[in-house]
């Protein structure tokens, strides 16, 4: 197990290098640069634009910019002149500087991450809490009315474009007035009691969670149903029944535990999309998360913000897969990694 973890983490390094190089190349291919947005302002003079480009190093070729960035990227920085010993270490990862916000990219990510992670988690929980029991029931009562209807709904849920659903949710929120129109907190949030703040956030999360979670419900339910069916038919179930075990014990202790295996892998995958999965929903529903930040950064060619969020996602994917493998090994003693 240790070897597996070390090996995976080692693979991560070349992976991140290649990905970041490619993102740099792609960003440099796009026409214009972060300063282009000022070109159409009548009161900006050419000398100023020139100065800005120099300041940002945009007058250098892309690979030079990339190496310059690479030189900056450190998991933490050391300030020898700081007053106290502990202040010399700054443990904020350094992902470079944002052209647009003129601040550390890491600060921007930290500002946006809580909203996105919270949304992803709630929609994951929603998906699992609803989908697993539904999938199990559909498998047990295969071909019943319940099974058919849930299958049909699953198809429908998988086929609705996320952004369309988000638009519908927005219309619903506006027309009924039951839900806030976008955002993560309401304007009075800072003046509410702690319980009031909790309710306020829950209220804002509800619609985006449903929009983002519906696809997940359908997906997880279908996987669960298929796995459960596979296992119900297998030999050990027959054996267990022959041994006279209670039906509930057979289902739960044997079938359910085995059927959940592939879902662990799926969970690892879901973990990887925690940061990037909500992009469209965030944009349409005006939800202040990472997706919105990255989308705007792409439009404004704020290269290092894009770079940082792609790298974060790659890291999340690798960690997600690793965690899934570990969890799999723990749930199923037959699986071993050497």
């Amino acid at each position, binding site marked *: 197990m240790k070897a597996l973890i070390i090996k995976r983490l080692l693979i991560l390094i070349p992976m991140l290098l*290649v990905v970041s190089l490619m*993102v740099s190349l*792609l960003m440099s*291919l*796009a026409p214009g640069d972060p300063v282009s947005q000022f070109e159409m302002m009548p009161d900006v003079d050419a000398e100023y634009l020139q100065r800005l480009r120099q300041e940002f190093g945009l007058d250098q070729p892309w690979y030079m910019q990339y190496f310059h960035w690479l030189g900056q990227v450190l998991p933490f920085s050391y300030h020898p002149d700081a007053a106290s010993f502990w202040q010399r270490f700054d443990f904020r990862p350094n992902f470079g500087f944002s052209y647009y916000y003129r601040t550390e990219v890491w600060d921007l990510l930290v500002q946006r991450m809580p909203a996105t992670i919270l949304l992803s988690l709630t929609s994951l929980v929603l998906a699992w809490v609803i989908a697993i029991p539904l999938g199990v029931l559909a498998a047990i009562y295969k071909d019943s009315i319940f099974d058919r209807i849930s299958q049909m709904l699953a*198809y429908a849920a998988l086929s609705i474009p996320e952004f369309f659903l988000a638009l519908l949710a927005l219309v619903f929120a506006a027309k009924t007035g039951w839900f806030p129109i976008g955002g993560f907190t309401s304007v009075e949030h800072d003046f509410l009691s702690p319980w009031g703040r909790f309710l306020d956030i829950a209220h804002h999360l509800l619609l985006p969670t449903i929009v983002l979670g519906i696809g997940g419900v359908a997906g997880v339910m279908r996987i669960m149903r*298929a796995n459960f069916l596979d296992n119900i038919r297998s030999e050990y179930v027959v054996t267990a029944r022959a041994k006279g075990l209670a039906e509930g014990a057979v289902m739960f202790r044997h079938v359910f535990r085995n059927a959940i295996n592939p879902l662990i892998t799926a969970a690892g995958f879901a973990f990887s999309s925690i940061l*990037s999965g909500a*992009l469209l929903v965030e944009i349409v529903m005006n939800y202040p998360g990472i997706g919105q930040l990255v989308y705007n950064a792409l439009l404004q060619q704020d290269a290092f913000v894009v770079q940082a969020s792609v790298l974060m996602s790659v890291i999340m994917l690798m960690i997600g897969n690793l965690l899934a493998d570990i969890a799999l090994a723990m749930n199923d003693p037959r699986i071993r990694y050497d």
Partner: protein
Amino acid sequence: MIRVSVMTSSMFKELLRRPAGLTVFIVLVLFYLVAIFADFLSPYSVTDQDLQHTFHPPTALLWKDGGLHVQRYEMQSRDLSGYTPVVGEGSPLRFFAPGYEYHLLGLVPMSHHLITVDGPDRLYLLGSDQVGRDIYSRLLHGTRISLSIGLIGIAVSMCIGFIVGGLAGYFGGAFDNIAMRLTEFLMAIPGLYLLLALRGAFAESFTPTQMFFLIVFILSFIGWSGTARIIRGMTLSLRNRQFVMAAEVMGQSSWKILWKHVLPNVFSYLIVAATISIPGYILGEAALSFLGLGIQDPSVSWGLMLSQAQNPQVFMEGYWWFLVPGLAIFVTVISFNVLGDVLRDIIDPKQKFLRS
């Protein structure tokens, strides 16, 4: 190749035998017919504007003088619900009458349309947009993009996927290693980010046709890796089978072996994998166009129509405009999803290789 055609035709027969399969097959055939005959079916061309009738609600039809007429409307205010019907007035509808000129299948010049209006009134079955273009006509033409982008995209990515996956599985070694690292790397970057970054990198000016192919290219570039991995796995298991070994001993070239022995054995899987991944392409194009980065005015696609419906005015009042392209995408995607599942059940009932 004979085996391939036999296999596909038996698969096809099996498909039609199942009710779900038959239903979606019919739906999809209808959609493709609409795409092909979009010009014939639509009363107006996609660029035909009428500034006097912007944001028009769907027009009513009425029966007058022994024929169908389109209701006449009078403008009360420039707001969405500002049109009121003029009782008993209208213009007659003509069937199979000449209208704007077009080329059937891009070849045969024609000017006949299923329905046209003879008179000053305009027929807006689904309302009009901000420059008075007919949403119904635009919807029909949008079918072409959504239905072809999946097929072309899938063809491209299946080819790349088969070649890379097949070679990797067959040769193994360094090539296999490199190819698989490459696919892992493509799969590691979040798809939508990659899509947006690629689109940004190629933001130069394009004609609508070039833009279409650019989108196909970008989507296939992202999409081939999954196929390659599946094909590699299958080739790997075929490689040790006797008929492949025999062919090797007989000195056949690797290309020939891939073509003659591997392809026929994985072909049905390829078809199913293709069908399952078509919705991804349709949704990808819709998302890109929705974000304003795909197909652009005056061309039309469903995603673009949805993005134009994002203005609150449209979705607060012109819901018909807003719902229709969304529903169209929904129906198409659900059809391909069902088709894919049915085909998979036929080919791979134990879901050994293909999972949802």
